Each structure stands twice: as C-alpha cells, then as structure tokens.
C-alpha cells in the first residue's frame, strides 16, 4: 500500500479505538449508576430495567459508530491509488472486516455481561425481601383467620378453614417481577456459549475474506465445519432454555422441544438453502421451507384454552390494566374464572403468540384488546405520532413511560396500544403514511427529549 492508503488505514484504526474507548467509558459510568440504583431500590427492579433500556439505545449507537468508523473506506482506499494492485486493497479490506467483526462481538459481549451482572446484583438485593413477602402471613379477607398458601409464587384460590369463604390470593408484584427476571441468574454461562458461537462464525468469514484477498474464490463452508456449528448452536440454545426452565419453571421435555424448535428456525432453516448440507442430509436443494410473512396460521393455534378464546383473553387483559385488583376479580367471576385460571391461560396464550409466525393469534388477541378502552377514532394521526415520539423519548430518558402517558395524554398503555394498532392498520394500507409517521414522531421525540 502507498503512504496515502496507509494513512487511511491508520485513521480507520484510530477511529475504531476511539469508539471502543467511548463505549468502555459509557459502560463504566453505567456500572456506577447501576450500583447506586440497586443500593437505593433493593425491592424494585423497574428503575434498573428502565435505566438499562435507555443506556442500551446509546450502546447501539456507539456500536454502529465502531462498526463503520470511517465511511466509504473502500472508495477512499481505491481513490488513493486508482491504478495500484487490487490485491493490497482487498487485503486491507479483509483486515477491516475482521476488526469490525471483532469489535461488534466485543461490544455485544461487554453489554450482555454488564446487563447480566447488574440484573443479578438486583436479584440478590431483592431476595431477602422476596423471601419475606413469600413467608409473610396472609389472612382471610372476610374473617381475618390465617390462610395457608401452597405456592406463593402463583395465584391461588384458598378456602378459609374458619369461615369457609374463598379467597383469591395473587402473588406480590415484587415476587412476580423477581421470578420473571430469574433467568439472568444463569445468563453468564449462556453468554459464554453465545460468544463461542459468534466467534466460530466470524472466524470462518475472516477466512473467506483472506482467501478472496489472496486472489482466490471465497470458499463454501465445508460439511465438517457446518456440523461443528450445528453442535455449537445446539449447545447454546440448550443452555438458554435450560436456564429459562430452571428459573421460571418447565420440564426437561420443554428444553428439548424449545431447542429443537429454535434449531429448526435458525440453523436448519439456513441449511435448507445450503447445497452441500442438503446433499449430505438428503434434503431437496433450494427447498427453503420458510413460510411467507403473510402465511396462514395453524388452525390449532386458535383453539380456546380452557374455554377461553384469544379474543376474550385480549378483552380481559384490557380490563386488567384499567381495573383495580378487586374489580378485576369480580370481572373474572363474570367469565367463570378465578385469578389462578386467568394466569394459566395468559401464560398459555403468550406462549402461542410467541410460536406463531403468521401473527394470527396476536390478531385475535388484538381484536379483544381493541374492543376495550380508548378508541383510535378519538385520536388524530398527528396526535398519535406525537404520542409515539413522546413514548420513544421517555424510554430513552429512563422515565416511566406509563406514568408520563397518563400525565401528558390522560391515556393508559392499553389505550395507547389500541390507538397504535388501529393507526398501524391504516398505515399498512397506505404505505406513504409511514414516512410521515417517521418524520412527525421524530419531531415529537425531539420535543419531549428537551423537556425536563
């Protein structure tokens, strides 16, 4: 390479180092902020989660900066020596791609480990309070006699031995939020496996680039390596779902089922388009086997769960967000269910939604949700864009978006969800509205970001 090209490369490396240093600084400050938050709110997970989500936006921006610290590097290298040997530029590009992959991997790992560390710290700080909440006595609402709980982590209907009244006892919100986040307790081991997988993939891409820079074709990944990758992916997903099941409930069969499902979507989905893999495994080549985004739902997914349809579940969720606990229990009784049943069907419907790429289950659920609360007709498109911008700003600022929504627009999150869904449907029919939506919501975001 000539001097000008060497200078461009040095500039690129310096910019990458600079982005890395900025990211390290941001993470160090974040760790300090998290330490203070956990100390101040040992019983409350929400402040930490809000802060981490807001910081994550900045981490993503820094990652983008680090991934491409000097734009148009290829053009600049070529322009610096238009008639020079192409191989040297390709060699430099291979180095750049290698460094970029390494940076992205490093940044992701740093962030995941920081998030995991502080979530675990928070969970450790919460644990004595969670234990106290679990073991604290619960008494009959009617006569005050003590009630005996079987599973304090879940909602239960308990008949009072003294007066015979049925009491619906729901888990303390702190206990619920604690157990929802417990998968972080095993996250460190999962991150190790994820990063091993990422490195394995990146190493191959580095090798292909190096071959190309040497004037040869980029090779296809050999079968032996693909099989190693298959094993690494399986290890990662197994660890991921083992951690979930260990901390949030489930069986060994669930781990196998979820892992197989994920492998099907991720690895085998990709391999269906790989001629070498298809030939070795007897799969018809080019048979991608992937449904269209607008594909039809499996009809079984819409079957009612314990007699409750997805639409009714949507209505009940809408009610839950607007009613107090006593009103909600009364409302559930009108639908012949107690809180324990509601929790069961809610979990089951959420699971189905997560495993339905056609989104038909969500559409049914949304129908129920939309039938309750604020109507989109009462909110103009411009107002909707403003609310969306404000919502984004509050998220980036670490504010409680739900509380601010009430304060500024007199809406609940469910109301906003209804409004957003209705406008999204209209926007889908008129794609040009998306540009207007992006512009107006970005302007509103700026406006709300400027507010104290």
């Amino acid at each position, binding site marked *: 390479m000539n001097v000008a090209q060497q200078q461009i490369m040095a500039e690129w490396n310096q910019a990458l180092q600079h982005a890395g240093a900025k990211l390290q600084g941001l993470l160090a400050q974040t760790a300090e902020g998290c330490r203070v938050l956990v100390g101040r709110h040992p019983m409350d997970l929400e402040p930490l989660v809000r802060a981490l*989500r807001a910081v994550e936006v900045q*981490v993503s921006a820094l990652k*983008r900066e680090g991934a491409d610290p000097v734009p148009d590097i*290829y053009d600049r290298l070529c322009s610096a020596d238009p008639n020079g040997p192409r191989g040297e530029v390709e060699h430099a590009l291979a180095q750049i791609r290698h460094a970029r992959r390494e940076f992205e991997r490093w940044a992701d790992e740093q962030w995941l480990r920081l998030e995991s560390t502080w979530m675990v710290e928070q969970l450790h700080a919460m644990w004595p309070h969670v234990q106290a909440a679990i073991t604290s006595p619960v008494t009959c609402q*009617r006569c005050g006699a003590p009630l005996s709980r079987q599973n304090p982590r879940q909602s239960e209907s308990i008949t009072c031995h003294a007066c015979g009244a049925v009491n619906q006892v729901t888990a303390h919100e702190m206990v619920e939020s604690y157990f929802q986040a417990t998968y972080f307790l095993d996250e460190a081991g999962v991150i190790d496996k994820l990063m091993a997988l990422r490195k394995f993939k990146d190493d191959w891409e580095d090798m292909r680039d190096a071959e190309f820079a040497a004037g040869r074709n980029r090779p296809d990944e050999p079968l032996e390596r693909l099989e190693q990758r298959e094993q690494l992916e399986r290890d990662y997903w197994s660890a991921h779902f083992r951690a979930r099941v260990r901390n949030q409930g489930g069986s060994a069969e669930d781990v196998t089922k979820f892992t197989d499902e994920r492998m099907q979507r991720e690895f085998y989905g990709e391999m269906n388009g790989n001629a070498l893999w298809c030939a070795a495994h007897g799969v018809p080549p080019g048979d991608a086997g992937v449904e269209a*985004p607008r594909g039809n739902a499996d009809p079984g997914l819409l079957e009612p769960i314990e007699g409750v349809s997805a639409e009714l579940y949507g209505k009940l969720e809408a009610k839950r967000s607007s009613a107090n606990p006593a009103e909600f229990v009364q409302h559930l009784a009108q639908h012949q269910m107690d809180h324990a049943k509601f929790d069961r069907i809610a979990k089951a419907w959420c699971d189905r*939604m997560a*495993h339905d790429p056609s989104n038909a289950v969500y559409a049914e659920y949304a129908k129920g949700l939309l039938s309750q609360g604020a109507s989109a007709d009462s909110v103009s498109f411009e107002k909707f864009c403003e609310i969306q911008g404000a919502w984004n700003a509050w998220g980036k600022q*670490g504010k409680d978006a739900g509380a601010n929504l009430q304060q500024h627009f007199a809406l609940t999150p469910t109301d906003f969800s209804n409004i957003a869904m209705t406008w999204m449907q209209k926007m889908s029919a008129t794609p040009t509205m998306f540009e207007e939506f992006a512009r107006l919501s970005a302007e509103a975001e700026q406006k709300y970001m400027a507010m104290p």
Partner: protein
Amino acid sequence: MGPIESLDAIVTRHVSAIHGAACSAAAGGDATWDGLLRHYGVTPFDPRERALIVRGMRLSRGATPAEVRVVLLEVQRWAERELVRIRSDGAPLGSSALGLLSDRIAFLADRETSTYEQMLGLPRLRVSEPATPPVAAAPSLASIFANADQTSKQAGWATSKHAHVNSLTCVHCGGPQERPMDFMCRYCRRPIAGTLEPTQ
C-alpha cells in the same frame, strides 16, 4: 420466547431462505428463484435487464443483487410494521434485543444485499444507509439514572408488603363464595358477580 426474539428469528429465516435460493440460482436467476419472487409478491425483472446485470457484474452464478434487494425490501417493510407494533405494545421485561433488532431491520435490505454480494464473491462492500429523520441528542447518563431513580416512587406496590387477597361476595344477597370456581351463589342461587358471560 418473546415477540422481539420471535420477530428476529422470523427475519433470520427469511433472509437465510432468500440468500440460499439466490446463491443456488443460475446466473441471473432460474425457475426456482422466480418461484421465490412470486412467493414474496415480487415481479421478476425483464430477462434483458437480468442479462445486462449478469454481464455488467460478471456474475457466474446467483440471482441478481438488485432482485435480491427488492425481495429483502419486502421483508424489511413487513418487519418494520411488526416492530412498530411490538414497540407500541411495550417491550418485555429484561429485553436486551429491541435496540439491536431495530438497527438490523432499519438497514436490512442494504446490509443483507451487501452480504449476498459477498457470498457471491463480488468485491464491493457498500452499505448505503438511507437518510433518517433528525434525531434528538442522547440524554446524559446522569439524567437517565436520575429519571429511573424517580420512577420507583411511581410504583404503587413498592411500599406494599403483602400479596393481594380478594374474596367474592354475592352482588344480590351478600353471601360469600364458598367453593373455588363456583360462581353461582350458594345462598340465593344467582350469579355471584351479577352476570355470567359465555367464555368463548
């Protein structure tokens, strides 16, 4: 698996399928590739235009990057709508993926087309990112943590020490519910909560 992970997985599947089919196609495309285009509702390019691109880019195999990009744009548009829906619904607790997924989807077509070009061994690595609306300056970390700190006071349950306990009382006669999942009053034999709605 939450909605963010689910969307990410679906997008990955589509991209893999498109890359796989495009790479396996003959130079400029073939019947299988045309089938995939129809699958995504994309009209194949005119054969003369395809031939022009094959010559211009010296393709020895694979569909034209321009057609691949059009298909990827379809996936991107769909994914953007899904993302807005997920955002408006609120991100799930502990999610670390929403920001990453947003970035991925925003530039999906350009980046994945570039990846496809690399898969074909084409030398250029160009990612042109479209102009985005003005973005507000990021808030300082101090203000983020101060804001998050204040939100704790807004959690109504933060000071509560007990689980919620509720018992049903008949709206007609005041009698208590005495058997779990029995919503007819034992005393007046009327619906304890006033009405009984069908559940389906």
